C-alpha cells in the first residue's frame, strides 16, 4: 500500500486528488497539511481528511509520496521539505514561478533520489491519448501547425491567490499555458525553439491590475512545426463550464480536431438561466494519480517528469519576456538539462 499525503489545499485540484487517491486499491491517503490552518481545517471537515498543522508533522507519518498543491511560488519550499523527508513528489503545475526555483527543485530531487512528477493530467486524458495515437499512425501526413486553446474562467472566484503575482507568478499565461506546451512536446516529440506572446489586461479580474487576464502565444518547434496557444481567462462566470482545452492539427492529408472536454451533457434548469455542461468523459486526474502511485510501487521514473515541468516553465518565462519586449524569444538551453 502506497502511503500518500497532500501538501496544501491552495490549488483547486487538491480536492479532486483526494477522491482519486481513495479510488485506488494500492494507495492510501494518510492525510494532509496546510500552511493556512483555516483552509486546512475547512478541507479536513468537508473531505474527511486528517490534517496536520505543519508539513513536517505530515511527513513524519512514514509516507511514500506527497502531492504538492501549494501556491505556485511556494512549490519549491514545499518540495524541498518533502525531499528532506525522502518522499517522492507529484507537484502541481506550473513547476515553479522562476527557472532558478525549478532548477533547484530538480537538483534537490535528483540528489535525494526521489522522483519528481509534474501534474500534467492531459497526458492521461482519453481524447488526448487517442489523438496522439491517431497522429502516430501518420494518417494525417506531415504536421505543419496546431491551433490550441486552454481558455477558462478567471480562477480568482475559487482562490484569490491566482491573481496575486507574488504567489502565482503571473496571470493567465502561467496558469493556462503549461498543459498545452507539454501536450505539444509530447505529440510532436520536439522542443520549443521560439516563443512569441502578446497579453492583455482588458479581461476582468486581474487582481490589482498586475497580472494579465488574456494571452495569445505562438510557438515554433525545433522541427519547424508552429502552434498557437490561447491561454486567456476569457470564459465569463455565466459560461456553462470552467473552460476547455482543444487542439487542431493541420497536416498534409487533412485536419485533426481534439477537444479534451467535449464529452458532456448540456443541462438546462427550469428555475434559472444557468445552462451547464456536465462532463461524462473519463477522469484524466485518475490516470495521473495512478501513474504516480505505480511509479513509486515499481521504483521507476514516472511518465511525466520534473524536466517536462521545467520545459513548460521555460516557455512561460519566455512568453512573459516576449510580451514585455514585443519580440520573439529564442530558447537557449543550458547543458545541465
Amino acid at each position, binding site marked *: 500500500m502506497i502511503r500518500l499525503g497532500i501538501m496544501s489545499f491552495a490549488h483547486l485540484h487538491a480536492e479532486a486528488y483526494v477522491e482519486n487517491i481513495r479510488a485506488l486499491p494500492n494507495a492510501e491517503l494518510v492525510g494532509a497539511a496546510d500552511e493556512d490552518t483555516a483552509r486546512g481545517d475547512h478541507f479536513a471537515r468537508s473531505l474527511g481528511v486528517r490534517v496536520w498543522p505543519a508539513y513536517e508533522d505530515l511527513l513524519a507519518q512514514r509516507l511514500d509520496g506527497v502531492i504538492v498543491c501549494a501556491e505556485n511560488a511556494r512549490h519549491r519550499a514545499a518540495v524541498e521539505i518533502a525531499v528532506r523527508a525522502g518522499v517522492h513528489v507529484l507537484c502541481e503545475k506550473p513547476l515553479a514561478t522562476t527557472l532558478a526555483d525549478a532548477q533547484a527543485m530538480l537538483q534537490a530531487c535528483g540528489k535525494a533520489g526521489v522522483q519528481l512528477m509534474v501534474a500534467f493530467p492531459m497526458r492521461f486524458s482519453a481524447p488526448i491519448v487517442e489523438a496522439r495515437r491517431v497522429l502516430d499512425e501518420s494518417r494525417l501526413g506531415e504536421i505543419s*501547425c496546431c491551433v490550441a486553446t486552454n481558455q477558462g474562467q478567471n480562477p480568482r472566484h475559487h482562490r484569490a491567490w491566482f491573481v496575486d503575482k507574488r504567489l502565482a507568478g503571473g496571470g493567465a499565461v502561467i496558469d493556462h499555458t503549461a498543459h498545452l506546451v507539454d501536450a505539444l512536446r509530447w505529440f510532436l516529440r520536439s522542443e520549443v525553439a521560439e516563443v512569441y506572446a502578446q497579453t492583455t489586461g482588458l479581461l476582468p479580474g486581474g487582481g490589482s491590475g498586475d497580472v494579465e487576464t488574456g494571452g495569445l502565444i505562438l510557438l515554433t518547434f525545433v522541427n519547424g512545426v508552429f502552434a498557437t496557444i490561447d491561454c486567456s481567462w476569457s470564459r465569463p462566470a455565466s459560461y456553462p463550464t470552467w473552460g476547455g482545452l482543444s487542439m487542431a492539427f*493541420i497536416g498534409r492529408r487533412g485536419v485533426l480536431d481534439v477537444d479534451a472536454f467535449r464529452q458532456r451533457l448540456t443541462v438546462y434548469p427550469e428555475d434559472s438561466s444557468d445552462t451547464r455542461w456536465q462532463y461524462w468523459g473519463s477522469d484524466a486526474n485518475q490516470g495521473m494519480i495512478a501513474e504516480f502511485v505505480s511509479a513509486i510501487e515499481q521504483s521507476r521514473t514516472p511518465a511525466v517528469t520534473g524536466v517536462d515541468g521545467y520545459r513548460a516553465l521555460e516557455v512561460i518565462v519566455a512568453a512573459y519576456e516576449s510580451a514585455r519586449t514585443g519580440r520573439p524569444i529564442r530558447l537557449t538551453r543550458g547543458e545541465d538539462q
Partner: protein
Amino acid sequence: MHVAIVGTGLMGRVHAEAWSHTGARITAFVGKPGTGGDILAGTYGARVATELDAVLGEADVVDVCTPTHLHAEFTLRAAAAGKHVVCEKPLALTVPDGLRMIQACRTAGVRLLVAHVLRFFPEYRLARELVARGEIGVPAVLRLSRCTFRPRKADNWYVDPARSGGMILDLMVHDFDYARWVAGDVVRVFARAAQITGQADETDHALAILTHRSGAISHVEGSWAYPAPSFHTRLEIAGAAGLIEVSSPETAAVELRLHKEQDSNQEVALPGSPLQESPYATQLRVFYEALTRGTEPPVSAEDGLAAVQIARAAIDSARAGLPVELDSSGILP
C-alpha cells in the same frame, strides 16, 4: 444608375446577381473572351466587351471583380473617366496601389466602395453591433478563423501570389478587416505561414497574432489546407463583460448528408447560410444607396487599405520571422 462589371468569374457572377436586386441596371460585362461573359450578358440583358473603354461611356459605376492585381488599373481608369468604383476585396495587391486608388478617386470626386462583404454577414454584423452597444464590454481577445480548401480553377490566379497576394491577402483579409472594425487599429502583427497542400511559395495555412492600439489582441487563422468541400468560419469576441461566439458548423441551418459523400466540383467555396437576402445582396443594396443617396456605407476605402496593410504586414512577418510594427495613423494623407 448603370453598372459595368469588370471580371466575369465567380465574383462577377455573384455581384451581378446582387445588383439585380437593386434599382441599378447592369449595362455591360467586361472580360476576356470565352470566360462566361456572354452567358452573363444574356442573363442580365447587358452587353459584353473585352475592353473597359468600350463600355465606359454608358456606365455610372464600374464594379471591379477582376483578380486582385488588376484592381488598381481598372479603378484608376474608371476614376479618370469620372465613374464611381465598387471594388472587390482586397482593395489592392499592395499598399502603394491602394493609396493610388484612393487618391485617384478623391481627385476625380468619385466614390470608392470596397466590397468587404464580411461586414454584411448578419452574424458578423450583429456581433459587432452588440460590441458597439457595450453588451460585452471592451473587446479584449478575438479569435477569427476561416478555413477552406485550395482554390482549383483552370487559370488558378488565386494561388499565384503575384496576382492574388496569396491566401493571407485573399482570404485572411476578411478577418483582418473585421478584427480592426471590432477592436480598432492594429499596431503590431506576428504571423507564421505554412505550405501544406499546394506548391512551394503558396502559403495555404497561416496563423497571425494582431495587437490593437486599444490593448486588445486577435488570433486570426486562415486556411486553404482544409479538405474540400468544407468552408468553416469561427468568430469569438471576449470582452471585459462577456463573450460572443459563433461558428459556421454549429449554425448550419440546413445540412445535407448523403450515403455516399462526394466532394463537390466547386472551384472556389463561398461561406453562406440560408437568408432572405444574401450578404452579397445586402452589400450591393447598401452600396447602391450610398451612390444614389450619398449615404456612408459601413466600410470606407481607408478601411480597405488598412486591411491590405495588415495582410501585407502578416506576409512580411511570416517571411522574416519577426513582428511588424504598424503606424496606421500615418498611412494616409
